[in-house]
Every structure is written in structure tokens, then in C-alpha cells.
């Protein structure tokens, strides 16, 4: 028996509950320590909506006592996948593997039902987020629609009433698309003014690239200010986290291979990601490609070099910014996959505290999911809304004028939530605040 958390043996067969290493399922000894940290259990107080309840269900499926049906699909898509349970779990249950296997089983069995869901999955998971150029094209169209105020016009003349209800609800939440995407803001290779201490790759992401390309620019700037030469391939693929979390492991593997091909790992000290959700997936390519003889070794090397930006900066030690920001209280919302997935908790706070002028205020329940959770706010709007509301309440009580967060999904969720409640709290990436401080250092 392995002394560490079991990793599913998926050398040749696709990941599934029945086919996986049974010890992963057995690792849960149902002590219940996860219960108070699970947002869905907190809402319903029903065991089936808790981590240990879901694992019991998964185990029953592996044991052949239950089948992969609609009820199971509903439950597994009600789970946020926030991974708060993994932080709480003393036994070290590998919930990410269980979660991905369960969702893969559901897709395999086509247990989740058809209809509109199929269209959205086809559009997002199988099409847009597989084709970076197409995604950017759609981004441009969306930008045109937004910046010509067509959206406002459509809403005014009531045209949106013709759209399906779900689309109508979602449309105002659509992120504002940036004027320029990352490749227009960042050169393929940029060197710091002084001596290069390190050479790193920069991952620009999908949503980050469309809606927050300025955060990518800021990330490059902060890296340059700390002696890192930055390599940023202009056309990058999605990391595949969206696919892995939604039961499409084969597509996730294909994307992982593309990313491995894109970077010359030997020439880099690190590959940097600034989005919590992506990072949590990016660091586990070795597990994903375990059965791939050609890519396995490279995936191992990749996992070692893949670093969250905050983690990397604290590791190499930053030169403290001399210039400060206007005096303001700033709080910090933790992206689930940054704090629970990657266990990066202290570093973003450390960086924020290093910025002169900022008064750092702790956010109550800072590591409680905001409801964004990938595409959860689209698939489960009710529960997502509850969590969003709870988060915004906490933010407003801190008195902070700015909330920092390091994941595009959370970023949008907070922007929308704050706007809905009429609050003027700004949402920023910690690295953007840091970049601004460097700029003011002159």
C-alpha cells in the first residue's frame, strides 16, 4: 500500500470509477471533517450533497451497487469542485481524481441528459476552448457587440426577449472583452533592463487572454521587474482544466500535449500561470498523461516547473516596490484552486503586504467558493448566486475599496456580484496592484 495518496492507475484505460485503483475510493474513512467546509452541504445539510456522501456514492458505483444515472449526474454537477474538502481532509483523499473520474463516467454513460446542455457543452468545451484562434475571433465579435453598445441597444428594444431564458440571464454577465489580446501586448520574448536572473515561460490563458489581457501584461511586467526574461508564445491553447472537470479527459490530454509542445522546457526555469483555476490543472499533466509514453517524461518535468506567479515571486524573492499606491484598504478573495488546489495561501497576501500604501484587511471566509467554479455559474445559477451573494456581503463588511483575486472566473463573479448590489469596490489581480506599484517606482 502506498504511503501517499493513491493515484489512479490509468495507464491504458480511460479514467473511470470502476476501473480506477480502489484504494483511492477507500481512502475516505468518512470521519466527516469535510462537512463544514463544503458549500453545498452547508446549503442543504444533506449528506448526499457532501464530499463524504458523494464519495460513498462513487464507491457504491465502483462496487456495482449503484449505477451511473441522472441522479448521480445531477449530484456530481451540483458539486462545485472547489476542493475545500481536500484542505480539510486529514486522510488525504485524492478528491480531484475521484471528481474527474465521476464526471468522465457520467459523460461516457450520457447520464446527464441532452437538450440545451449538449449545445453549450459542444460550444464551450468541444469547440471554442479547443481552438484558440476561433476563441479570439469570437472575442472580437463580442467586443464589437459590447463596445458599439449594441448590447445596450438590444436590451432597450427588447430584442434579448427573443433569446432563450438562460441566455437572457447570462448575457449581462458576459465579460467585457479587451481591446487588445495578450499577443498584442506582450512580445514573444522580453528581457529585463538589467541582468536576467531567470528565464520563464508565461501562460496567457483563455478567459484571461480575452477579458483580462492587461493582467497578463502586468504579470510580464512584474516578472521583468524581478529579473526574469519572459517567453510568451503568441498563440496558446487552453490548459484543459475546463475539459478535465467536465468529463472530457481525452480533449484535456490533447490540450496538455499541445502546451508541452509549445514550450522548450529545457531553456526555462519555470512556466508561470496567473490564473488559479488553470494552475491547479496545469501542475498535474504528469498524472493526466501517465499512459502516454511519448509525453510522460516531459509532463513530469513540466509539473516541476509549472508555478503560480505568486508562488514563484515569493520563491525567488521580490525586490520591494519603492513607489506606493494611494492609501487604501485592500482585501483578498482566494481562488479555490489556488488555495485548495495548489495550497498557495500565504504568498498572495505576502505580496499585497509588500505594496506601500495598501492596508491589507483579511476577508472572512476568504477561502469559501464565490460560486464561479469554472462554468458552474452557468450550469447551476441558483447555488452560484447564493455563494456570490454571501461573498459580496463579506467583502462589503471589510470596508475595503478593492478586493484582490487571482482567477478570471472569480474576478468576473465578484465584478458582477458587486455591481448587482450597487457596491463600488474595485476588483483587481494582486499582480496588477504590484505592477502598478512598480510603475510608480519610476
Amino acid at each position: 500500500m502506498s504511503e501517499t495518496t493513491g493515484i489512479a492507475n490509468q495507464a491504458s484505460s480511460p479514467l473511470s470509477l470502476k476501473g480506477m485503483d480502489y484504494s483511492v475510493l477507500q481512502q475516505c474513512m468518512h470521519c466527516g471533517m469535510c462537512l463544514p467546509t463544503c458549500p453545498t452541504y452547508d446549503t442543504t445539510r444533506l449528506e448526499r450533497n457532501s464530499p463524504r456522501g458523494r464519495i460513498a456514492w462513487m464507491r457504491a458505483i465502483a462496487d456495482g451497487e449503484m449505477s451511473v444515472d441522472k441522479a448521480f449526474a445531477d449530484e456530481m454537477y451540483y458539486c462545485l469542485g472547489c476542493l475545500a474538502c481536500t484542505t480539510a481532509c486529514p486522510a488525504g483523499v485524492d478528491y480531484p481524481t475521484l471528481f474527474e473520474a465521476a464526471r468522465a463516467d457520467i459523460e461516457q454513460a450520457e447520464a446527464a441528459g441532452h437538450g440545451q446542455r449538449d449545445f453549450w457543452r459542444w460550444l464551450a468545451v468541444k469547440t471554442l476552448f479547443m481552438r484558440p484562434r476561433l476563441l479570439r475571433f469570437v472575442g472580437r465579435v463580442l467586443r464589437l457587440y459590447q463596445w458599439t453598445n449594441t448590447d445596450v441597444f438590444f436590451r432597450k428594444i427588447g430584442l434579448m426577449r427573443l433569446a432563450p431564458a438562460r441566455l437572457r440571464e447570462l448575457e449581462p454577465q458576459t465579460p467585457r472583452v479587451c481591446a487588445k489580446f495578450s499577443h498584442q501586448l506582450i512580445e514573444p520574448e522580453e528581457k529585463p533592463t538589467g541582468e536576467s536572473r531567470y528565464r520563464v515561460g508565461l501562460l496567457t490563458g483563455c478567459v484571461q487572454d480575452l477579458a483580462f489581457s492587461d493582467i497578463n501584461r502586468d504579470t510580464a511586467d512584474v516578472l521583468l521587474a524581478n529579473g526574469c526574461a519572459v517567453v510568451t508564445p503568441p498563440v496558446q491553447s487552453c490548459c484543459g482544466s475546463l475539459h478535465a472537470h467536465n468529463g472530457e479527459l481525452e480533449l484535456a490530454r490533447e490540450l496538455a500535449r499541445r502546451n508541452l509542445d509549445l514550450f522548450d522546457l529545457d531553456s526555462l526555469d519555470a512556466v508561470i500561470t496567473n490564473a488559479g483555476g488553470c494552475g491547479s490543472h496545469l501542475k498535474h499533466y504528469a498524472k493526466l498523461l501517465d499512459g502516454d509514453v511519448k509525453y510522460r517524461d516531459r509532463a513530469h518535468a513540466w509539473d516541476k516547473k509549472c508555478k503560480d506567479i505568486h508562488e514563484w515571486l515569493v520563491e525567488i524573492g521580490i525586490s520591494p516596490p519603492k513607489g506606493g499606491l494611494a492609501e487604501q484598504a485592500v482585501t483578498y478573495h482566494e481562488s479555490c484552486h489556488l488555495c485548495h488546489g495548489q495550497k498557495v495561501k500565504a504568498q498572495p497576501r505576502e505580496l499585497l503586504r509588500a505594496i506601500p500604501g495598501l492596508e491589507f484587511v483579511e476577508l472572512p471566509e476568504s477561502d469559501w467558493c464565490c460560486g464561479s467554479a469554472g462554468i458552474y455559474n452557468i450550469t447551476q445559477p441558483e447555488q452560484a448566486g447564493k455563494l456570490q451573494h454571501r461573498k459580496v456581503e463579506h467583502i462589503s463588511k471589510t470596508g475595503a475599496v478593492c478586493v484582490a483575486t487571482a482567477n478570471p472566473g472569480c474576478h468576473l463573479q465578484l465584478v458582477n456580484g458587486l455591481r448587482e448590489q450597487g457596491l463600488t469596490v474595485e476588483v483587481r489581480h494582486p499582480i496588477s496592484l504590484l505592477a502598478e506599484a512598480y510603475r510608480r517606482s519610476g
Partner: protein
Amino acid sequence: MNLTELTSRLPEGSVLTAREDLLPYAFDGTAALKQMPAAVVFPRNAEDVAAVLRFADEQNAPVVTRGSGTGLSGGSVPVKNGIVLCTLRMDKVLEVDTRNLAMMVEPGVLTKVIDEEAAKHGLFYPPDPSSMKVSTIGGNVANNSGGLRGLKYGVTRDYVMGLEAVIPDGEIVWLGSKCVKDVAGYNLRDLFIGSEGTLGVITRILLKLVPRPKAKRTLLATYSDIERAAETVSAVIEAKIIPCTMEFLDRMTIRCVEDFAHVGLPTDCEALLFMETDGHPAVVEEEAAAMAEIARKYGAKEVTLAADEAQALQLATARRSAFAALARIKPTTILEDATVPRSELARMVRFCEETGKKHGLQLASFGHMGDGNLHPTFLTNEKDTEEMHRVEQAMSEIFDFAISLGGTITGEHGVGLAKRDFLPRQFDPGSYALLSKVKASLDPKGLLNPGKIFPVQG
């Protein structure tokens, strides 16, 4: 059982019957015990509970009461096709009486919430089972739970002034009062404390609170063997110091806890003592200094003081994870709570170690050294029937030895299913018969938690 009838007698949304909804109620925190119920009900008050018990009485249906399902003796594992009565929707703090230092609560309130409520008024609810973030007060009372502060503050029983319960015929009874002194009639309140849901369902609890200690100091001492740690504990108490906590962890437990919590526990020692003293600031400083000195005198390799409250809390939280953290080594952790008079602790620890070795089993130990409550934990795999058989053998020997030292088979987890068959060993036949007689007189049909504490009759 007529489930439609049961559902009709309770408010809407109070009953679960779908297989997938029931499945996660088939177990509690105990390893390797599982049984599917026919229904799970969520009463909102004593009247709902009475309705459920009257229904059960009519239909001869067994009822198992459950809170958060963190029990470690199988006490809330369902009876096959029976009803699980879950108290989680009875979760109100009804009153905090600062003049009488008392708090009235419903059974589904989490233990941690009780202490947080008390703290708002400068008061303190001391019993702190390791599962306190999850466990309910109802479950604590029904199992007379202990915790890390037993040595100085006692256990749950010492903080229950009164309780309301529904007995099997559906009658709602109140036992106890806010009076410090009350000798009216038999003390039936105490009968219900630790009754493990076999006599009635507790629906309200009047708790005693104490002033919150103003200061606390936390110490860690490391040892190259367990005996020295045990000697330190005895010497501290002999020096007329009663610390609130004296926990010990063996090497394997330290490693697992550190692997999970990353709090900087020293992993290069055989035993670790985690000690806390609380009370008046001046006394606490004095006692902490004396404890550190005694620890060094009795061979501690290193003694460190927690820097601040945050670090102390981190260490205590890490200690509370010990049981589950041990699952990192092997998937099934069979945790026992054999308890002996403090003076016999070192002998008991040694015996457990030898017994584990004799049966070729992996054993980790931790526990409440200050009160003689030990947690020898077998690390095994429930799928390995041959090894599980050896675990049972070893457990049986450990229980016998504990009894021979004047100890008990269970200090704080309860008898439940897991220790039921060992219970007669601890009592002479006449005493055991008296226990059964109490059960039979309150629950003649044997419908409340049947099979727990006693085997099912007939």
C-alpha cells in the same frame, strides 16, 4: 413499514426515502460498518420526534438517532430497513443565561457553535471532542463525549444540568433544572447521558458554562521513548498542577499529522507531549514554567512554548486531526479508546505495542495521557479479512488487559456496535443484568437503537 404514512405525519420535506439519498446515511465515522436504512427523517422539534416514535411504536420499526454521523463506535449506524432520525434541523441556541451560567440548546447544534456562543459572553463550554467542528451536542450528550480537556474540566456529563427527551411511547419528559443543587427524585438525567440513543431521543439540553479562562499557554515536549512522556505526566500531576490538556502522540501519528497539517511538529522523536495550561495569567505563566522544567527533568529532548494563541490553536487543531490523518498509512483505521487509571498508563501503552507486534499489525498510538484515555489505532485494510481477524484478536486482548488494570473498554466513544460484545467482560453478571433491565423497562419493544450496547434480543 408504511413510508407514505410516516411522510404524511411530518411537515413536507422531512423524510428521505430514495436509495441514493439514504446511501450516505448508511455509516457514521466508524470504520467497516454499514447498513442501509429505509428512511431518514429530519424532525424540527420534540413534537415531530414524538410523532416519529409513535409511528415506530405502531409499526414496530427500529429508530436510530443521528447527529452529524461522526461517532466512532458505530452507535449511529442504521438498523437494516429501520428509520434514521437525524437531529440536524433542531439546531437552535434557545437561551444563554449569564446569571445562572447556563445555555439551553437543541440537540443539532454543533459543539463548536456552543463554545463560540459561550465565548460571546465571556463564558466557556469546555468539552472538546476532536470532531467538535462537526459533531452535534446531542451526539456528545448521548455518548457522554470526552475530549482534550478531560483532565481538568471533565467530560460532557459534567456540563449537563438538564435535558428534554422523547421516550419510546412518544411521551416528552424533562429531567433536571438550572439549580446547582437538585435532589428531587431519581437522577434520571444522568441515565440519558451516555445512553447512546437506546432509551430515548434527546430534544433539548441545558448546559452548564464556566467563566472563560483569561490566559493559556501551550507547550510541546519531545521524547525518545513513550515511558518518559508518561513519567512527565505523572510528575506534573504529582507537583499539584492540573493542566487542561496533556496529549501524547507516537512517532507514526506525529508523522501523519505533520504530513497533513504542516505545523512544524518534530518528526524525529518517538513521542510528543502536547500540554496546555489555562486560567489566571500569572498562574498560567508559573505553571507553564514548572511544566517545562519537569518535562526536561524527566528526559524531554526539547521543550518549546507556542509563540502565540494562533500557533497554539494551530497545534491543537493538528492534534484533533490525528485519527483521520492516520488513514494516510492504510485505508482502514480501527481506533479504540481503552482507558485505564492514570497510574497504569505506561504499562498500557507498552502492552498495546507488544500486542500489535505479536499479531504482526501496524499500530499507532495517541491519546489523552492526562486522563488515562488512550487511542491505540490499528492501521489495516477492511478488504483483508485475515488481517482484520488478527486486529479483532489484538483488540480483545487489549480490552482484557485494560479491564485487568481496573480500566474500561471505552473511555469516550461509547459501546455502540463496535464494543457491544466486550461489554459483559467489564461487568459481573448481576451488574450487566441490571443494565439490561433498565433498557427493557424504558424500551420494552427494543425499538430504539437495537443492537447497540446490547445484542438484539431473541
